[in-house]
């Protein structure tokens, strides 16, 4: 059935995103990986809306809007860090530990 293929695609995209968040050291690439996960969610929602009606597509619109706001804040914080440390490598953030 067609629905399953979309769900599989979303699952693969989700795994790629999770891998990216865990492995990547560059702050911007981590943000992009989070975006991949959110897009996996959108594919899921739209695929399910073939079963259950429009609600899923409306939800996908909400997700897109919120993701844009979130990435805006995230990039602002990354820029702030870059100005102070001249690097956006997440592993180099080691002020806080214990």
């Amino acid at each position: 059935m067609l629905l399953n293929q979309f769900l599989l695609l979303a699952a693969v995209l989700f795994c790629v995103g999770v891998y990216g968040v865990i492995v990547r050291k560059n702050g911007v690439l981590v943000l992009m990986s989070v975006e991949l996960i959110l897009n996996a969610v959108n594919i899921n929602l739209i695929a399910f809306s073939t079963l259950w009606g429009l609600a899923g597509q409306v939800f996908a619109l909400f997700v897109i809007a919120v993701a844009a706001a979130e990435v805006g804040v995230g990039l602002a914080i990354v820029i702030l860090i870059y100005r102070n440390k001249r690097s956006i490598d997440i592993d180099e953030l080691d002020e806080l530990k214990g």
Partner: protein
Amino acid sequence: MTGFVAVLAATEDIPTPDVDWSAIAPNLILMLGGILLLTVVSVVRGRLPGWFHAVWTISVATAAIVAVVPLWQRVQDSGPESVLAGALVLDGFSLVVTATICVSVILAALLLEAYLRRERLGGPEWYVLMLLSASGGVTMATANDLVVVFIGLEILSVAVYVLAAMHRRRVSSQEAGLKYFVLGAFSSAFLLYGIALTYGATGSTNLSRIQAFLADTVITQNALLLGGLAFMLVGFGFKVAVVPFHNWKPDVYQGSPTPVTAFMATAVTAAAFAALLRVYVTTFGPTYRTEWQPLVAALTVLTLVVGAFLAISQTNVKRMLAYSSINHAGFVLLGVLAASAAGDAATLFYLVAYTFMAAGSFAVVAVVGRRGDGHHDLSDYQGLSRSRPGLALVFTILLLSQAGVPLTAGFLAKFYVLAAAVESGYTWLAVLAMLTAVVSAFMYLRIVVTMYFAEPEGEPRRPRIPAAAGLAMGLCVVGVLVIGIVPGPLSDVANDAVSQLVAVGR
């Protein structure tokens, strides 16, 4: 083409739901209060006294608490109801959490006033972000739809990401902001994936409809729903920092400006637990309890044990309090795990009591941190009983309350949660929780002993106690002692609030 014109020419109104403005008054007051503050300040820039922002924020939060009272009466008289076409639910539980969030806004605003003055930082943005974040928390606590839970969570979190990174001169503050942001966004994505799977399995994101669907239908293939439940648990788990999703918490609590840490420990925790409880206990409790309870039980064990044991090995007081808040999260989780009316009431009681304990403790930490917000080592507390006896006494009372000593709020909070867990058949977990409470009591007493008996190296410093911070501490101590000595009113409210948790769909 003609079809297109016909569509344009059609004058049918898009159906809109009835908006019951009075039912969402507390949330509206918080949100409009934040936006108005930003507007007013940018219009009359430079002509406002320095205390204006804090007083405005406190008035707005107080007004929101006042707006809760008639709604509470309404719910008591005519029962819980769902408003805005089933998007939000008005019941005792959501109203008490709303009031709790407003109280933590008041306490955090007092701390922030003193803090910003000391650090020579300024601006209304701190208060605006805090009010907007609180409005997101209230949205989350009143949500009756997974979409609304998600949007509330994002409004709450995005504002707090910025607040955590707001201290311009401290790199550790920005580091805390980035760490919180990355893990927060990651966890929201997990939550969202879980919501999508749940939507696929049940055909709705509305909690009352999901509950009704599960009660009516026997699902033969429930892999999707189980996956959804697990992913949502991971998402909520990151937000309330249950082990193994707790790694961010000590770093973020240590790096953030201390008043922001106080806000995170109180408002963010309360809102996230409220949503967790509504989704798992109320919505999936009647039908899927046996599926999620083992998972949550495992998380509770890990959270209690790891939170207590890692706290001992710390030497930074802010990190100690962060780990102790992980241990507290384990106790609250015990109330959620009980999945009964008693468990809900105990959870609510714990959240209210913890608001006073945590806000007060971080108030002391903020004062002792001195300018630069960097003196948080255990050695900075040596000799505090001689240089500032009052401050040491306040911290002692709050720490003893966190440890669960009788006649304080912490004792009863722990007692109710354990009683609810035993009632639901988790005696072994209650015993384990008591053991971890003993372990963390050691950590609290270590701070107390340092304050009273350790010899300071050199002349002990007298940290300045600003009036606003002193007021916040006073409120917290009074709150902790009043709840501890006269628990009747609060536990009555908690019991009334929980009996109406069941959401009603339209």
